């Protein structure tokens, strides 16, 4: 058998390489095959070259050879795990090789993901409210919309007979429960009282509607007897540590003796109420009164399976006509009719609200606890998404910007037989690996930040480290983020043509530059938007807190639950006054902050016809004492304050400016008289008896509700023996001293009763807790967005500087100064930030306008604020850039020009 010479074999190897058969393993095997064929042919007498060409023909020449090579590579890749391992190794190597860029990417992405993680936990938590109740989808409550005498109320308070009527007259209702809130209660076994703010009076079917698991007791009878109570496990443990609370006796507010009839599991945090003490309404007079015009009860019901809540709702207007209208007729006069009632702009309507709507979609008067607003869920989710996008953009921009460096790699890989799909997979593996690493870090960041966030949001979120679902979602999210961030770069990078790339033409083109610039603009638009938003929220908060309120909220100590003093109330007040640390004191629950008492009643100018709707003025009735106006620092604008020297002041009234405007007195205000129906002995208005008050003074308008609302009419009159807290205006700068004085006297005069107090300004600020929270959250988001965007910018400038080292060197040799080079390098991105500002400003203007429209009193947001925010963003970005630019500009040109 003929054997090929070494020269022949060398020839074949060269020829095969020339034809593109280069893959490792493939070349050798095909070489052997071709040699074998050639040898056989030569045996038959052919010349070498003819034999060789015959062998080639059997493959189908160059095209066939390459096709075979391709097929072999493909066939070998049937084991995806091997390939994946290869991708993985290369990806890891690349991450390590470009440490700086990997760090920037991972840092940005993990912060973004960490924030997203927290927001997702939060949103999931908010969406899970009240879902834990059995039959949660069948529980509803009734809310009312009432317009009467010029005042609107949208509330959850409904008449007491509504619950019973729903149960008896509506077959689709399975059970009903209604609640009556009578504030917090002092609870004791024998001596020591504790204050239980989460106290609620409830009718007997509470446990039928809300199937709260019981630890002891029978749900059917738990609240069935008068003076029976059901308590939560927490309260039971507090009152009866180590004992069985079941069947024990409690004393409520030092008066009511109650028996513990049931102990229930604590309600989960995700519930719209957290009652610890439920008092039975059984035998309660108010609860069974048939009064349809008095709204004091929250009414819930359990709908039967398959019943339609909309149908039930549509029957409610008829219920009003049948039940409420006859009673209103009796009060408002015989000529009352539904048509006339509506014609004068009044309304009385009931709606049905599902349990699932309560936490996010409900904000009415009479909520048990403040709910959350779904708008903020959307807002937070949107911002979290934007931050994540900003982080992903960093990845995209850095990858495409550095494409020149990797172009050679792509070229070589393609020449070595990689397909585009291989390269895309390679780049995607890199980005996925990066996002998985970031996600691990993000979990750590979220874990560390969660306490801060909980503090801010008032929630108790925890990382669900034990949940398998959590890890699955985390993993899938990492994949999704990795693919999202890596898709564009991989598409972009894998498209390089090997011939051009290896020749040195990196066709970066305008296209990639444009896309990159657009993405940078997007990042900074979002960042600047958030900065402007934050500044606007803080400016409005500052405006609220420094605005002239019409009263003086500072230096007022309020001692709560003064009724616990019993008959010692006045004595206590005098004792504290005698210490000389207080300027004045007032005993009234009608305080101009949230949580103060409110009472609304229609009045009219004496002599006018009360049956004419337009004569009625719905006005706040505040019962105060002689020192009230002085203590709270309100200003008398006209007339005089109440005084002990005028015995007639018991039938006098002081109005605020808004009330004067609404009443629109025909003559002199001071001395005018206003009237309303007197209270009948059995409750309800007595139509035959009038209560008349004479106006002796006018106070300047003062804010007593959130500044979202406008001033409403208020009238104040002297009332003796009104319960509620005692407020002291104190002189001392040392608040702690004042508290200890008030507490010491309390301990002496009310032993065993808990001393609770607050400062009026704190309570005032509480009204704006939501705004403060929003400001802080916005602030944090804005900072993070800027931080991540600047990380990207930092790396991008570093990269440009690196690319232009030679250019900079030459410029310096030719005499360019450092500053001109710094300017040159920062100019390009500076322009982008300017564009971002131009885009962000109008967006922010719309956003702020939308947010502020809820406020009757709002601060002016001038152009200055926008410019300031823009300037701040620009400065931060410029400092970031100039660090890199300066380093590049200051380097010695000899170094960069020496080597080629």
């Amino acid at each position, binding site marked *: 058998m003929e054997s090929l010479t*070494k020269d022949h*074999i*060398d020839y074949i*190897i060269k020829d095969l390489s020339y034809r593109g058969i280069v893959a490792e393993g*493939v070349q*050798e*095997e*095909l*070489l*052997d*095959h071709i*040699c*074998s*064929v050639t040898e056989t042919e030569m045996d038959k007498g052919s010349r070498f070259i003819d034999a060789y060409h015959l062998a080639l023909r*059997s*493959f*189908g020449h160059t095209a*066939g050879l390459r*096709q*075979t090579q391709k*097929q*072999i590579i*493909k*066939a*070998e*890749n*049937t*084991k995806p795990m091997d390939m994946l391992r290869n991708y993985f190794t290369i990806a890891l190597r690349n991450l390590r090789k470009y440490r700086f860029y990997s760090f920037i990417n991972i840092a940005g992405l993990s912060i973004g993901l960490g924030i997203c993680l927290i927001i997702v936990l939060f949103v999931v938590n908010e969406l899970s409210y009240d879902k834990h109740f059995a039959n949660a989808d069948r529980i509803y409550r009734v809310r009312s919309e009432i317009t009467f005498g010029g005042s609107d109320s949208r509330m959850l308070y409904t008449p007491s007979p509504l619950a019973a009527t729903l149960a008896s007259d509506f077959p689709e209702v399975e059970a009903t429960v209604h609640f009556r809130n009578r504030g917090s209660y002092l609870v004791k076994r024998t001596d020591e009282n504790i204050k239980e703010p989460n106290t609620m009076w409830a009718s007997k079917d509470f446990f039928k509607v809300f199937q709260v698991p019981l630890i002891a007791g029978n749900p059917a009878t738990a609240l069935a007897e008068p003076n029976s109570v059901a308590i939560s496990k927490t309260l039971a443990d507090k009152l009866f540590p180590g004992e069985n609370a079941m069947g024990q006796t409690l004393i409520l507010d030092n008066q009511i003796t109650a028996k513990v009839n049931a102990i229930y599991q604590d309600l989960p945090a995700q519930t719209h109420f957290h009652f610890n003490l439920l008092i039975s309404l059984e035998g309660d007079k108010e609860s069974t009164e048939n009064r349809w015009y008095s709204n004091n009860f929250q009414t819930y019901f359990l709908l039967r399976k398959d019943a339609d809540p909309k149908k039930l709702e549509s029957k409610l207007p008829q219920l009003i006509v049948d039940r409420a209208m006859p009673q209103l007729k009796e009060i408002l006069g015989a000529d009352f009719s539904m048509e006339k009632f509506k014609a004068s702009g009044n309304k009385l309507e009931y709606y049905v609200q599902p349990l699932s709507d309560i936490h996010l979609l409900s904000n009415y008067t009479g909520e048990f606890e403040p709910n959350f607003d779904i708008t903020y869920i959307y807002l937070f989710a949107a911002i979290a998404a934007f931050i994540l996008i900003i982080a992903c953009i960093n990845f995209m921009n850095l990858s495409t910007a550095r494409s020149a460096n990797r172009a050679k790699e792509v070229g070589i890989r393609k020449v070595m037989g990689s397909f585009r799909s291989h390269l895309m997979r390679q780049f995607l593996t890199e980005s996925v690996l990066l996002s998985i690493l970031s996600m691990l870090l993000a979990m750590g960041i979220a874990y560390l930040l969660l306490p801060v966030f909980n503090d801010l949001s008032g929630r108790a979120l925890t990382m669900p480290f034990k949940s398998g679902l959590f890890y699955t979602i985390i993993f899938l999210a990492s994949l999704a983020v990795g693919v999202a961030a890596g898709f564009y770069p991989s598409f972009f990078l894998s498209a390089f043509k090997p011939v051009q790339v290896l020749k040195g033409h990196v066709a970066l083109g305008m296209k990639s530059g444009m896309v990159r610039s657009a993405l940078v603009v997007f990042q900074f638009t979002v960042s600047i938007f958030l900065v402007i938003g934050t500044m606007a929220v803080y400016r409005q908060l500052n405006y609220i807190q420094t605005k002239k309120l019409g009263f003086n909220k500072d230096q007022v100590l309020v001692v709560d639950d003064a009724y616990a003093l019993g008959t010692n109330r006045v004595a206590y007040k005098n004792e504290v006054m005698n210490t000389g640390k207080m300027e004045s004191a007032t005993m009234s629950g009608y305080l101009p902050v949230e949580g103060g008492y409110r009472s609304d009643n229609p009045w009219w100018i004496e002599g006018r016809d009360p049956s004419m709707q337009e004569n009625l003025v719905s006005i706040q009735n505040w019962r105060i004492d002689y020192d009230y106006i002085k203590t709270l620092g309100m200003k008398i604008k006209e007339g005089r304050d109440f005084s002990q020297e005028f015995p007639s002041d018991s039938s006098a009234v002081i109005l605020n400016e808004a009330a004067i405007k609404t009443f629109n007195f025909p003559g002199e205000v001071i001395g005018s008289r206003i009237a309303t129906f007197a209270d009948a002995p059995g409750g309800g208005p007595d139509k035959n008896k009038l209560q008349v008050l004479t106006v002796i003074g006018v106070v300047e308008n003062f804010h007593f509700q959130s500044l979202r609302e406008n001033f409403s009419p208020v009238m104040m009159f002297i009332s003796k023996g009104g319960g509620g807290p005692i407020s002291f205006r104190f002189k001392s700068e040392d608040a702690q001293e004042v508290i200890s004085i008030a507490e010491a006297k309390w301990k002496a005069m009310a032993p065993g009763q808990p001393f609770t107090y607050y400062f009026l300004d704190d309570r005032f600020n509480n009204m704006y807790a939501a705004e403060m929270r929003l400001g802080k959250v916005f602030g944090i988001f804005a900072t993070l967005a800027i931080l991540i965007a600047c990380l990207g910018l930092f790396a991008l400038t570093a990269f440009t500087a690196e690319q232009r080292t030679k250019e900079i060197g030459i410029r310096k040799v030719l005499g360019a100064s450092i500053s001109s080079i710094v300017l040159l390098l920062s100019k390009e991105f500076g322009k982008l930030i300017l564009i971002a500002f131009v885009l962000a400003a109008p967006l922010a203007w719309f956003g702020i306008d939308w947010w502020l429209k809820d406020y009757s009193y709002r601060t002016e947001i001038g152009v200055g604020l926008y410019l300031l925010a823009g300037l701040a963003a620009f400065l931060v970005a410029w400092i970031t850039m100039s660090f890199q630019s300066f380093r590049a500009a200051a380097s010695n040109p000899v170094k960069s020009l020496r080597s080629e």
Partner: protein
Amino acid sequence: MHSPELLKGTLQTIILKVLKDHGRMYGYEITQRVKELSDSRLLLTEGALYPTLHKLEAEGLLKTETVLLGKRIRKYYTLTTEGKSLVRERVNELVDFIKTMSNVLQVKLA
């Protein structure tokens, strides 16, 4: 000569069976053997043979060893234990298929 289209589905079985009968073989040897067995009516194209060999190797049915022949490297294929146990099954499958085809096409096999 038979059409390569007809050969497609049977290529793996042919390679496995030939390797079972002859033990260690290299690519060219296989083509020659098949050619011999079929009286030159069956020609394995290189473009089909090598990818199939590599695929079978990747699937773990074949193992390889290389022998240095001066400047050339010869790659020999042998069945793995897994491959050996599969040959009979594959051959039976093909025989079955041929029977079915003869029924479908209404022809009697010699």
